[in-house]
């Protein structure tokens, strides 16, 4: 009896399994209704990006585009992007169809920078334009606006340029992120825009306390100490403008302000900039700073052997420069450029008396970059323990007056949960925005010891299209996809309202923004119209005729036969056992 039962059970299971396997493709075939497939590339570890991509995937299904989301590690992402830019290969080879990522182009400093993704001069390998979108009219407008210096004259150029972008849509912008700087309640003077850039750390203080120490935690460790050699935000946050200083800097409205330069004048043709330096600036080792230091630094950056990251902008924009006297520096540009301050004059100045005699190729490996930074800023560097911390102590002789704090530590804690525990316990005082602690905001609000400052990240999250993909090389298709991005829902659900919807190519806070230049927003019906304008006919997408019942005969017979065979085999096997 038992034998029979086992055999029948086995036969039944086999029948069902075989039937399911054979019938699934028939059922699936009824659901597959799409015009074409495309992939979205995202960086592994960015959960919010993955969720956004999956929402786009879900919505695009409704208009007949099948999207696959690929998560890859950062280095592979970069590689695929560059291969795509180089050869135009797509996701099925080594390139990409679309990528979704937050991209900071510094266009908040000057709208000219907004061209870095779209201008043809930035095509691979020179820059970020990897999507093969080129537009002569856009290039012309950007080039013409770049050499103008008056904001009011420049405005219409950028409006027109961004209109072209909004019409052609080489990328669909999605949203701006607001990341919290979480800190102990007693940390005062923390500016949401500057953070620790610029004169950020200079204004920090502790409530009800003279001096004191602030420990600032960030997830990444520093590769080296001179920002121009680092190519990483971690270095900039720790020693950029706290230890190092440049001729110019920006304030929390992104307006240019003088740093080492007490004042500056620009000639009428916009070409010659003359800077008056502060007289009483001393390097942290006691030597005075002069215009010769500026000349020495600019010499280094101009030489390709130095391998400074600002090299390209210098070669492009700098014609000549000289020290008029010890405290006057004069520089002539190759062409007028309102963006020059953001490209040239925020280059940090290096001490001539330390590295002036060295060949430029040895600068990068000098102790100034690898062991101890000696700058002119409000804080002096004491020690750098790689992967642990950078220790800064207040510069008592600072020419603008001493900063309120005694000491600042930039601590490296890779894990966000550990960092938050350390903050709650008071082992550190401020957590970097890179920890993306948006989800923790309710938890932070409930804790009286903690508070947060929101930083509006001026770089938008883009969905960038690769135009060498023939399907995406049609602006109506791109508009359709843009209409499939549920931006408001993304901000509400994925970002927990810590963000803003973005439908432009430049941040609303900046002067180049105009509210009437917008890209297509979420509207599925409109998206379908765009698809029809692109030549896709939804009649093709009508579900295929229902599979007739007769089609299921073969799977059923197959299942039965397999079941019978297995049942019989089991029966005879069990008999032998008995």
């Amino acid at each position, binding site marked *: 009896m038992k034998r029979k039962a086992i055999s029948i059970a086995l036969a039944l299971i086999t029948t069902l399994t075989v039937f399911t396997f054979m019938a699934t493709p028939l059922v699936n075939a009824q659901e597959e209704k799409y015009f074409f497939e495309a992939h979205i590339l995202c960086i592994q570890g960015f959960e919010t990006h993955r969720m956004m991509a999956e929402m786009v995937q879900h919505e695009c299904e409704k208009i007949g585009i099948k999207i696959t989301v690929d998560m890859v*590690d*950062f*280095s*592979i992402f*970069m*590689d695929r992007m*560059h291969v795509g830019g180089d050869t135009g290969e797509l996701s099925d080879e*080594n390139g990409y169809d679309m990528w979704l990522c937050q991209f900071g182009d510094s266009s908040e400093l000057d709208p000219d920078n907004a061209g*870095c993704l779209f201008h043809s*001069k*930035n095509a691979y*390998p*020179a*820059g*970020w334009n990897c999507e093969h979108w080129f537009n002569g009219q856009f290039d012309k407008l950007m080039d013409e606006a770049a050499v103008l210096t008056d904001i009011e004259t420049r405005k219409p150029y950028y409006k027109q340029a961004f209109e072209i972008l909004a019409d052609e849509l080489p990328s669909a912008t999605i949203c701006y992120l607001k990341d919290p700087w979480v800190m102990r309640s007693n940390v005062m003077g923390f500016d949401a825009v500057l953070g620790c850039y610029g004169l950020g750390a200079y204004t920090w203080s502790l409530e009800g306390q003279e001096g004191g*120490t602030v*420990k600032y935690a960030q997830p990444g*460790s520093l*590769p*080296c100490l001179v920002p121009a*050699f680092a*190519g*990483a*935000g971690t270095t900039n946050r720790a020693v950029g403008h706290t230890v190092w200083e440049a001729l110019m800097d920006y304030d929390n409205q992104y307006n240019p302000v003088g740093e080492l330069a007490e004042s500056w004048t620009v000639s009428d043709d916009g070409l010659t900039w003359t800077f008056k330096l502060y007289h009483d600036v001393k390097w942290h080792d006691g030597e005075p700073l002069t215009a010769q230091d500026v000349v020495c630094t600019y010499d280094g950056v101009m030489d*390709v*052997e130095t*391998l400074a*990251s600002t*090299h*390209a*902008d210098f*070669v*492009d924009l700098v014609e000549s420069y000289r020290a008029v006297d010890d405290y006057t520096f004069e520089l002539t540009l190759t062409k007028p450029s309102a963006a020059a301050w953001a490209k040239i004059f925020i280059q940090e100045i290096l001490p001539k008396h330390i590295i002036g005699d060295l060949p430029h*190729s040895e600068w*990068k*490996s000098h102790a100034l*970059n*690898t062991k101890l930074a000696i700058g002119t800023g409000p804080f002096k560097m004491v020690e750098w*323990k*790689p*992967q*642990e*911390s950078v*220790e800064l102590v207040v510069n008592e002789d600072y020419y603008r007056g001493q900063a309120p704090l005694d*000491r600042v*530590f930039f*601590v*490296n*804690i*890779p*894990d966000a*949960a*550990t*960092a938050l*525990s*350390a903050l*709650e*316990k008071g*082992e*550190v005082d401020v957590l970097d925005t890179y920890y993306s602690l948006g989800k923790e905001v309710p938890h932070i609000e409930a804790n009286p010891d903690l508070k947060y400052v929101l930083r509006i990240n001026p770089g938008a999250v883009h969905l960038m299209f690769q135009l060498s993909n023939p399907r995406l090389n049609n602006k109506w298709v791109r508009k359709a996809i843009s209409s499939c991005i549920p931006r408001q829902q993304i901000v509400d659900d994925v970002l927990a309202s810590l963000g803003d919807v973005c439908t432009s190519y430049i941040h609303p806070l900046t002067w180049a923004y105009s509210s009437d230049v917008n890209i297509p927003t979420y509207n599925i019906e409109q998206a379908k119209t765009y698809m029809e304008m692109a030549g896709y006919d939804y009649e093709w997408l009508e579900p295929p005729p229902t599979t007739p019942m007769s089609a299921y005969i073969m799977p059923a017979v197959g299942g039965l036969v397999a079941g019978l065979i297995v049942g019989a085999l089991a029966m005879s096997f069990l008999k032998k056992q008995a």
Partner: protein
Amino acid sequence: MGGLRDYTIRRILISIPTLFGISILTFTIIHLAPGGPLRFSLALRGNIPVEYLLEIEHRLGLDKPIWMQYLIWLKNILTGNLGTSFIKEVPVIDLVSLYTWNTIKLMLTAQILSLIMAIPLGIISAVKQDSIVDNVSRFVSLFGVSLPTFWTGLMLIFIVAVKLDLLPVFGAHTIGAVYSSPIEAFLDQLSHMILPVVVLAFSSAALITRLVRSSMLEVLRQDYIVTARAKGLKENIVIFKHALRNALLPVITVVGMSVGFLLAGATVTETVFAWPGLGRFVVMSTFNRDYPAIMAITMIVALMVVLSNLITDLVYGFLDPRIRYE
């Protein structure tokens, strides 16, 4: 003892081709991995003139064919030069020596602690099979084997460091602390080591406890144990002299092999506790495609594993005199 010396020398000689093979394999794999160091270091920059690219390529030696790059690396390493880190432009040896020492400190302490916990527990579990001690230790070690280290780490931080406020949360020492005496500095370091060491030791001890237990049970059933007991030997002597020595053989094998696993586990533990060690450095170097750093770390780890295996084999001889080194 001549046999032992010859054996050791022979083993060391054999390990040379092993290390050589590992180096070729690693070198090939990291060069095959998509995304070179060039792409990475340029990732965060805007416009790049071609001569800039060529200059970097030349400076890093990436413009030569891969076999030539390998030969240059080999020549350097034979003269004791581990190369210069692509990203930091400082000699790799400076970085690696610092981090290696930190990681070894963590690993050795964890290994010793896990042995101290695991061997007695394993013995008691086996001798008093199905007693309370046995059941509890089996239950706890099940947790140890199956819980991921980052989870235990975070839980320990939350409970011990934040809620109970007993130990520091992260790092190798208190940031910005000024010590009045070396003892104070040592105690500070020690307090920072406790949590990561416990996390590492817990998972490794769990495995070893189970191994000692099963191995002891096996041995205790052997005829010679029955004989020993029949001769009227004291139970302690039976267990420690007759049973334990034999039971430890498989345990030693696992402990020797676990050096590699501990290093892998250290990567996670170091990340959770922000410990400045080799594990975190290797992850960062891999993401940055910092070839010289990756090669140096791989060779160091390979050397450590080869050495620990050699030591394991030598320890066999002390535990079991029947093993001859020929």
